[in-house]
């Protein structure tokens, strides 16, 4: 197993203590509940789209350090991105935390999100890291109102 400091990097701890964009979004046009039934983590993701672009994005909920920080950093990253770019980031991020790079890029686009690379050493925590991202995918594809990691 990996080193704890690889998992709990300073940036992650910082975002888990002080999550950014942690609020409900008025005039959100997408709202998706993400739920991890295994541990009870919940995230509600709010997205406002304009001209195919993420105009504003926020979240609320309760979860572990990994899921909270992941949601927080995701919302920071996504503001101003087109839905297409966002979907590509989903793939990149997913590849990063599962240790199976599958996106088209080489992960460089992820920028700060690369701090989550330690997660792949802790397979049981992958669902924590991807909960908000799955909610995002559902929000952008306009399908489900709620997603579950199970």
């Amino acid at each position, binding site marked *: 197993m990996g080193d*704890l400091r690889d998992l*709990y990097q300073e940036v992650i701890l910082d975002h888990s203590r002080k999550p950014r964009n942690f609020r409900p979004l008025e005039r959100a046009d997408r709202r998706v509940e993400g739920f991890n039934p295994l541990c009870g983590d919940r995230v509600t993701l709010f997205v406002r789209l304009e001209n195919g672009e993420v105009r504003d994005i926020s979240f609320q909920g309760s979860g*572990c*350090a990994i899921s909270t920080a992941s949601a927080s950093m995701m919302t920071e990253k996504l503001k101003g991105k087109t839905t297409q770019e966002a979907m590509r980031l989903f793939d990149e991020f997913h590849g990063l935390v599962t240790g199976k790079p599958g996106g088209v890029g080489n992960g460089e686009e992820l920028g700060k999100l690369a701090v989550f690379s330690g997660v792949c050493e802790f397979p049981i925590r992958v669902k924590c890291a991807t909960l908000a991202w799955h909610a995002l995918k559902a929000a952008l594809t306009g399908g489900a109102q709620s997603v579950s990691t199970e």
Partner: protein
Amino acid sequence: MSGSERILKAGAQADASYPRSAPRPGAAFDIEAIRRDFPILQQSVNGHPLVYLDNAATTQKPKAVVDALEHYYTRDNANIHRGVHELSQRATAAYEQAREKARSFVNARSTAEVLFVRSTTEAINLIAHSFGAARVSAGDEILLTRMEHHSNIVPWQMLCERQGARLQVAPVNDRGELILEDFERLLSPKTRLVSLVHLSNALGTVNPVKEIISLAHRRGVPVLLDGAQAAARIPIDVQDLDCDFYALSGHKLYGPTGIGILYGKSELLETMPPFLGGGDMISSVTFEKTLYNKLPNKFEAGTPHVAGAVGLGAAIDYVRGIGIEAIAAHEDELLRHATEAVSRVSGLRIIGTAREKAGILSFVMDGIHPHDIGTILDQQGIAIRAGHHCTQPLMEQFGVPATARASFGMYNTLAEVDALVDGLGKVREVFA
């Protein structure tokens, strides 16, 4: 000669050849000797000696249980009942001997009242179906408590949906104790059954079940006890308790997974329709009419988990060799020490502070999710559980989505409790 007499006679021979459990009754509680009986404990996890504190989820198995399984499969395995050949007779004897051990373990009057099931979950589902079909109709009520495991909630919800009955839920106070006055008030002329946990898996609360049973019986209401956690920690005497049903899982009693015990009073079991239909639960079948078998076979359709029963029998021998009272006293000491020590960890709050507790310590830490506590402890070789423990309604009452839970077994040591406390210090450091 009845079937069960024949079986018991044959059983006496089979037993002599079965591997014996190590401990002798009455021997002093020798923790080092006990630990040697559990091979799985002698390993390192993530570079540290394993500290296994997830015993409420499942206990480890002593060598005696593993040996009994191996012995059964390498020597006696065959399908039971109706077999004229030697192996089938041995397997049948071993199975029925295990039933006798189970009977004696819960002190039932007769083996007819002791059913082998897969687990506590299956036992509760069996009662919900069979008792439910016979005794519960529209407008009736089933009384539970707020501290039930999902397996003692969902089968009743499903029954209520089928029959148009209603669930009543007795509340729990902030210490995690059942509020008896409210419980009594909720017992109504419509209550058909009370079903509650003997020892709460999420809080460690020991319920005053004898008092509860007598309250219910005064109104003619039968009681099912969920003994999943109690079985390995509290001596069970179903006659003294006078409970109507008692459910437990072998795997939480140092036995194999996939086997459990359901005790039921024969007066009740006799009047209930079978749960599953199939082979062995019938005495004769024609397409016009099927006659059901006697107890306990009426409730054991199909080929049972013979090896599991044999393994559970070995676990019962092992546990009784050490003595449930001795195990309970040991776990009380661990719990007392742990409660004191974790209380000194800053920002830690114990969830579940009932006056009567056993073997289980749930807690949360300020600003640190139980999941993160679990991962950081695991890195130090310490296995605990983080989550809602299948008791979401209870978590809601305590205002937490989840807790971290350390649960003790007979082989845990005070040094392991200290390792847990040191581990929590490390958790604090990571999040400092």
